[in-house]
């Protein structure tokens, strides 16, 4: 089944409450996906230089300081690390390729979950409520986030198989549904040298979209191309450094509800995930149409961009 949630804050003063508003959304959608969960938050990191690397180190919660000290030896004093249980955000002036290599050589137990100037990613096994409390989602601050509660149907339950999936920088995807041709999509991308971490269908969709964007497509153009390339059922919720984007496949049998006010745009698999949000009774609540791309920007306040895709 799975649940998806997303929240983009338009009113700047509310950004301090991003996590507080999102935790009940994730908790509620635990009914649709109790086996694992994840969340990607987009933060304003004005005080740091370099890219942020979200790291997951199962059982490594006590030893982050050792990793930080060693990374300083290769990357200098600009490095910082913000740890939260088994998850940490490493900020480093080194390139993504160099950090990846450094981790692979010295820290084989540490997974790199995301890279970007704004994204921070958490995912783990267990009930979404427990994961939210384990990593302190309540206190997350930022412009927007997307989250997922998983009920696995097509590949194993593990932190790596939990959503959101990421590819490239500051891009992530959560998915309710199932793709029926992920293996052929994956093989085609692998032939282009794109590496995969799991056999999960959503990872294939995520890396396909990111590959299209590296080839010059906008996210919207990549999604339009995906209607030809990705076969299956999906409600996709995506985020970039400054946008949240939603799309459902032509049959639209995977649900989504949007609530939009002057202060925020909230997305959930079901309305009950949004029922606690302030002012939701007066919000514009609607069900997104099939094969229509909904895009909300954190920069251009107020407007909803929609693109109907004719196939």
């Amino acid at each position: 089944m799975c649940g998806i949630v997303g929240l983009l804050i338009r009113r700047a003063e509310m950004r301090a409450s991003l996590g507080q508003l999102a935790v009940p959304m994730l908790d509620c959608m635990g009914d649709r996906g109790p086996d694992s969960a994840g969340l990607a938050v987009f933060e304003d990191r004005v005080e740091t230089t370099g890219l942020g690397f979200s790291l997951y180190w199962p059982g490594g919660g006590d030893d982050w300081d050792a990793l930080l000290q060693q990374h300083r030896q290769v990357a200098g004093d600009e490095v910082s690390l913000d740890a939260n249980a088994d998850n940490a955000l490493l900020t480093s002036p080194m390139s993504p390729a160099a950090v990846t290599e450094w981790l692979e050589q010295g820290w084989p137990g540490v997974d790199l979950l995301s890279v970007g100037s704004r994204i921070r990613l958490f995912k783990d096994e267990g009930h979404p409520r427990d994961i939210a409390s384990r990593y302190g989602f309540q206190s997350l601050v930022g412009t927007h986030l997307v989250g997922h509660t998983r009920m696995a149907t097509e590949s194993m339950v593990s932190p790596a198989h939990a959503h959101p999936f990421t590819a490239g920088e500051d891009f992530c995807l959560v998915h309710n549904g199932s793709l029926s041709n992920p293996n052929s999509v994956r093989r085609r991308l692998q032939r282009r040298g794109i590496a995969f971490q799991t056999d999960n269908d959503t990872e294939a969709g995520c890396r396909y979209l990111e590959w299209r964007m590296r080839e010059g497509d906008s996210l919207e153009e990549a999604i339009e191309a995906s209607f030809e390339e990705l076969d299956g059922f999906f409600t996709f919720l995506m985020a970039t450094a400054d946008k949240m984007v939603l799309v459902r496949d032509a049959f639209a049998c995977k649900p989504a509800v949007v609530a939009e006010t002057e202060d925020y745009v909230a997305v959930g698999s079901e309305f009950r995930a949004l029922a606690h949000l302030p002012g939701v009774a007066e919000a514009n609540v609607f069900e997104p149409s099939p094969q229509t791309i909904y895009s909300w920007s954190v920069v251009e306040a107020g407007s909803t961009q929609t693109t109907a895709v004719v196939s």
Partner: protein
Amino acid sequence: MSDIREFDLAETSVRELNRYLHGELRDSDVARISVQNPNGQHSIGAGLDCPVEVEIHGHAGYFIAGMNKQARVTVHGNVGWSVGENMMSGQVRVKGHASESAGASAHGGLLVVDGDASSRCGISLKGGNVVVAGDVGHFSAFMAQAGTMVVCGNAGANLGDSLYEAVIYVGGSIDSLGADAREEPMEASDVETLRGLLSEAGLEGDAENFRRVGSARSLYHWNAEAHQEY
């Protein structure tokens, strides 16, 4: 017989409410039920079986008033999937919009949606009536067997796909008809039926300007020479 009983679903669970509706209510003088704070919860008022009025104030979730018999249920808000599914009798009214599969397989009664209904509205309808003041989404009235669906607005793609004996009336445009669905002439009896349903639903509409969609019945018998092309 005019007693009102109020339930606040912020304090009472849906299970407690439904247990009351299925039990104690039937032996009481309560004629009206008011439900506050539905907050998108599912199955509110499912399985009602007595002539009571239920008012739900706010957006509700899936399966609202499912299997309804006799009761008149009004939702002052939107509903999720499958409102009034398998209704037997009575009336369910949604003041806002309805999500997918509204009125699925309803055997009797009347479902009215004042806003739009999403895809698969009236799927497998089995004798109930569905009246939508706004638009309906794709694959509405899919495999509908008996009963009537009225769409005052526009119908999405593949309307009435694999239709049996249910009849559809559409006031606006039709994106496309599904397999075996066809437009048929509006007879005087159609106008009369439609006027009756619009009136029962409390909606305005010029019955003579609606179009009728029925089954061409070409899928009723297996045709080995069709090569799976319909």
